[in-house]
Structures are given as C-alpha cells and as structure tokens.
C-alpha cells in the first residue's frame, strides 16, 4: 500500500513539473474547466437561492398551518363544481372548534378589498382580513408597535385594527400609527398594533405587510354581510402533527356540515405543502434544464482536456520511451498522465470555484444565496473525476507504448 502512495506522490510531482513547464498551454487548457465548474457551481447556488427565496416567501402562510376553505388551492375538478359548494359559515367554525382536539389554535377569516385612507393619503384595493383574537396565534407575527386586538375587542366587534408595515410606511410615514384612526372604506378604525416587516413578497396582496386586520364581526357588519364564505386557518402543534390535524379537520368539518358517509367533501383543506409540491413540479423541470446546460459547458471543458492530453502524450513519446527504458512500469506512466489531467482539472476547478464564490455575492443582491459547503465538495469531486475520465484514454495510450518505438520517435 505504501508503494502505491509513493508512486502516486511521485506521479503528482512529475505532473506538477510538466504543468509548470508548459504554463501557457496549461492555463488555456484549464480555462474550459474554470468556466464549466464556475457555471455549474453558480447554477447550483442560484437554484438553492430560488428555493430558499420561495420558502421564505410563502413562510407567512405558516408551515404548520391548514386553511379550510370552500376553494381548493390546486385542483383538477371542474370549476363550476367548486363554485356550487355551500359557503363555510361561522356555525361551521364554532362546531369544528368545539369538536377538534388536535389544533394548537384556529380562527375564522373573511376577506374584503377596501380603500384605506389616512390624512389625505390612500391605498386602493387593500386586503382587509377580518378574524378573531386567536388569529395572531396562528401566525409568527412580530409587532413593531402595540399588539393584536384582544378577545374583548374582537367579541365586541369594536372598530380596532392592526396594520402591516408597508401600509404604515405609505400612509403614516414617521407618525406613530398606534391610537390613530385609519379609514377603511370610510369607516374609522383605531390602530392598536403595527406589524414588523414580514417580507413575504411572493404572496402578493396576501403579504401581511400590505394588509389590515380587523375583527370579523366588523367585516361582516360593514363590508361583506353574510354572502361570503369564511375560511378557517388552523395551526397544528408541530410540523409532524400537520397530517393528523388535517385528518381530524376533515372528519369534524364533515360532521359540522352534516355530510353523509357517501357524500364527497364540499370543502377543501389547503396546506403550504401543496404549494411546495406544485412549486417543485414546475420549477423542478427548469432546474434540471439549467443544470444540464451548465453541465454541457463542463463537458466542453473535459473534451478540451482530453484533446490536449493526446497532444501532450504524442509530444512526449521520446520521454515516455526513456522512462520505460529506465524502468517505469505501465501503471507508473498511466498514473503520471492521469495525475496530470486530474491536477489541471483540479486547479481549474478551484479557480472556477473562487470565481463562483465571487459572483454569487453579486447574485446575493437579488436572491438569498451563498455557496454551500456541499457545492464546494461537489465542485472539487467533479473536477478530479473530470480529469481522470478525460485523461484516461490518452494516459492509457502512453502507458501502452512500446519503448523501442518510442525511443526512435523524432
């Protein structure tokens, strides 16, 4: 075993000499690998960044939350079948609440689109969520000022509101919004709390930063009446419990809505997980294509290495003959040239990696990315493997040379 280490070390030393002797050519050859590894590493990092951005973006929906609604988020069903479903009502909610044991918290929600106004500034089409005091328990809201409205305030359908960060920035600027009155479709609400910026850009209008939260009683009284379906948000005790909470919810809701055993659900239970799955399906294909294309550039680099190794071997025919005459075995020659190819690729890979790390800091301005350790190991491994694979046939050609013929070569 010792002998092999010795030979490997000497092979690497020989190849270092050879690479140094032909600096310009080695540089040019390795350029293909530099570009290849750089693009693969960048692509892998960008993909991770997109994934992470998406996760962060929908995190406001809550990984442990279920949304019981008339409408499913994704469906293959015909649209009119869904439309004809009965609304979910507050009675459904109260019944489910009394029956369900698994949830950590739950709240009914009702959505309206209103114009919010303060002191001459206004924002059209703001999403106004009506809910109960428990709603805050289903979220991870951080408060910049104040608090969510309390049970007493909610039960009494007081005209109190909690506003998101962007609303405050646009309407209140530097004024402390707490205890100020905001007009929601001309109805005045007293602000009791302001949320810290949540940053869930992917949710569009559902981004908490752009929302106003009021008691559900107020929603019904002023904006929707009883024509709209409510949605129920349910928080499981933990991510591991989401499945069983969903199963219980289905059972209890069926009971609450008086469904017989042979009737289908006339409601839907939606999860963030469904969103992730949908995302993965769509984006998954794009990721594969992206990796494939950058893989191609690496392939081109590998072909360049193979080409140059062939030339190098041919050029050094005499040298190979001398080494064999002096006593180099086939495997010694083979490992010498393999080491050379692998070393060129490793050097190129390292340079490509450095480049990728630098460029990824640029990408970081748009996506939450950073080069991961496993990308680094992957890049190093791929570099060495590329070297060994592309260098193999040339190295084998060198090893097989007949020393007598090689020594005669001009």
């Amino acid at each position, binding site marked *: 075993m010792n*002998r092999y280490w010795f030979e490997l070390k000497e092979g690497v030393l020989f190849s270092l000499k050879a690479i140094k002797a032909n600096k310009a050519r080695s540089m040019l050859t390795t350029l293909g690998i530099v570009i290849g590894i750089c693009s693969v590493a960048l692509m892998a990092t960008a993909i991770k960044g997109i994934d992470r951005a998406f996760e962060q973006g929908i995190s406001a929906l809550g990984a442990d939350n279920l949304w019981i609604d008339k409408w499913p988020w994704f469906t293959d069903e015909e649209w009119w079948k869904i439309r004809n479903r009965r609304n979910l009502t507050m009675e459904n909610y109260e019944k489910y609440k009394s029956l369900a044991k698994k949830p950590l918290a739950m709240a009914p929600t009702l959505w309206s689109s209103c114009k919010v106004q303060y002191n001459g500034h206004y924002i059209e089409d703001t999403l106004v969520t009506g809910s109960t005091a428990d709603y805050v328990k289903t979220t991870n809201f951080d408060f910049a000022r104040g608090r969510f409205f309390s049970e007493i305030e909610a039960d009494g359908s007081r005209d109190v509101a909690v506003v998101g960060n962007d609303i405050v920035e646009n309407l209140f600027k530097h004024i402390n919004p707490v205890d100020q009155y905001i007009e929601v479709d001309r109805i005045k609400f007293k602000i009791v709390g302001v949320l810290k910026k949540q940053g869930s850009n992917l949710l569009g209008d559902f981004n908490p930063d752009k929302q106003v939260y009021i008691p559900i009683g107020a929603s019904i009284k002023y904006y929707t009446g009883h024509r709209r379906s409510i949605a129920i948000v349910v928080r499981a005790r933990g991510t591991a419990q989401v499945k069983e909470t969903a199963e219980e919810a289905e059972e209890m809701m069926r009971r609450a809505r008086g469904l017989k055993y042979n009737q289908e659900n006339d409601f839907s239970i939606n999860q963030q997980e469904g969103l992730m799955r949908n995302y993965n399906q769509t984006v998954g294909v794009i990721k594969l294509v992206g990796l494939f294309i950058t893989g191609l550039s690496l392939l081109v680099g590998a072909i360049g290495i193979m080409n140059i190794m062939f030339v190098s071997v041919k050029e050094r025919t005499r040298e190979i003959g001398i080494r064999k005459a002096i006593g*180099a075995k086939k495997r010694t020659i083979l490992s010498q040239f393999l080491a050379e190819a692998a070393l060129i690729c490793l050097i190129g890979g390292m340079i490509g990696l450095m480049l990728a790390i630098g460029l990824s800091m640029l990408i970081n301005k748009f996506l939450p990315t950073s080069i991961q350790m496993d990308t680094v190991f992957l890049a190093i491994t791929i570099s060495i493997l590329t070297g060994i694979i592309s260098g193999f046939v040339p190295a084998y050609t060198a090893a097989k040379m007949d020393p007598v013929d090689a020594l005669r070569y001009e």
Partner: protein
Amino acid sequence: MNIITFENITRLYEVGAEEVRALDGVSLAIGKNEYVAIMGPSGSGKSTLMNILGCLDTPSSGTYLFKNIQVSDMSDNQLAEIRNREIGFVFQTFNLLPRSDSLHNVELPLIYAGIPSAKRKEMAMNALVSVGLGDRVHHKPNELSGGQRQRVAIARALVTQPAIILADEPTGNLDSKTGEDIMTVFSEIHRQGNTIILVTHEEYIAEHANRIIRLRDGKIEKDEKNSHSHHAPLTKAAAMTGS
C-alpha cells in the same frame, strides 16, 4: 555464473508480407566485469540484439538467461524491474529529460525503484561526482555540452549499481576529442568492476573493449578477445592507418 546467456535467440519481424530475421540463432555468454563490443554494419541486427539484451524487447524464440533467470517469458512489469535495477542504458542521443536538471535526471531510476527522497539525492550526487559533474548538478541538459550530457547519462546508468551497462553508440553524437573523454570514463567504470556492453560500428571505439563480437545478417560472424584493449586509446586516424 554468467550474467548473460543467449541460447539460440531469434527475432522475427513481419514487414508487409515478408518475414525479416533480425536475429537468427544467436548464442553467447557474457560474464562479470567483461568489456564487450558488439560490432556490425547497418542491418546486422546489433540494435535488435541490444534491445533484447536490455529487456526492451523479447525474442521470438530461444532462451535468454539473465543471472541464470529466464527472462524470455517474463511479464512487462518484471522486465521493467530488471531494466530499472540491473541494466544501465547509455544512448547515442543521450535521452535525458529536457526539462529536468542533472540531479533529477540521475535520480529518475531511483524514483522508479521506490527509494525515498533524501537517500536518492545522496546517491544521485555521488554518481554525478564520480563522473566529474559535481558542480553541474542543477544544470538542465540544454545548459550542458554534449560530453557533459553523456556523462550525466552515464551517471544515471550507474546510479542503481546495475549488473550491466549497455551503451548504444555512446560517442556517435560527439566530436572525437569528447568521444575519447567518454571512452576514458567507460574504461574507468570498467576498472571499478562494472560489466560493459558497447554497441558500435566504429572500429576504433570497439578497440577499447577486451572482447569484440561481430554480427552480420543477424548471425555472429566472429567472437574473439581483443588484444589491443589495454593499450592507450587509439584515435580515429591511428585506427584508419592501422598503427
């Protein structure tokens, strides 16, 4: 014990549709500390003979015993080991690694023999000093004269303390004065106990040896002791006029 024994060695080549007998039933024996010159015109088979002697080539038929071991059916790896440890080559065109200095060139056989770095450098230094190049250790071949390059090659051939030194036209690329210097080196090596086999087509070079084997058309024509060998080295001119 003879170091080298050839029994009826034949080497055939196929050239197109014809069969060429480069060596045809050659038998000989070479003992320790002999100084043998193998002579013959072009096409006599002396290169082929040298390649087989040096374990660079295997015979088509016949037996080659090296130190009484059958070489003729050894594997490539085994032959490589013999070349490494028991045979020191000196070529007409020097055949040094052009991008390495003298020290690295001389230590090359030791690397293949698995000798660790410090020991090798010491052995290589000693070999270079023994051929008078102790002050040219870090020169590359293109910084050395022809004679110096050949001396590096001789140092390389000696460094593993081989059983035989095999020299193929060692003075062929050198002027007559330098050539003489090199032949002096060979005489010195011989005096120190090495076994030397020299291949040449020049009479005055062969005269340095104490046995001359003459080849013609793949067969041994003559194999006799050389009575001139312990005289002062002859110059080409003197050889031509026979004085």
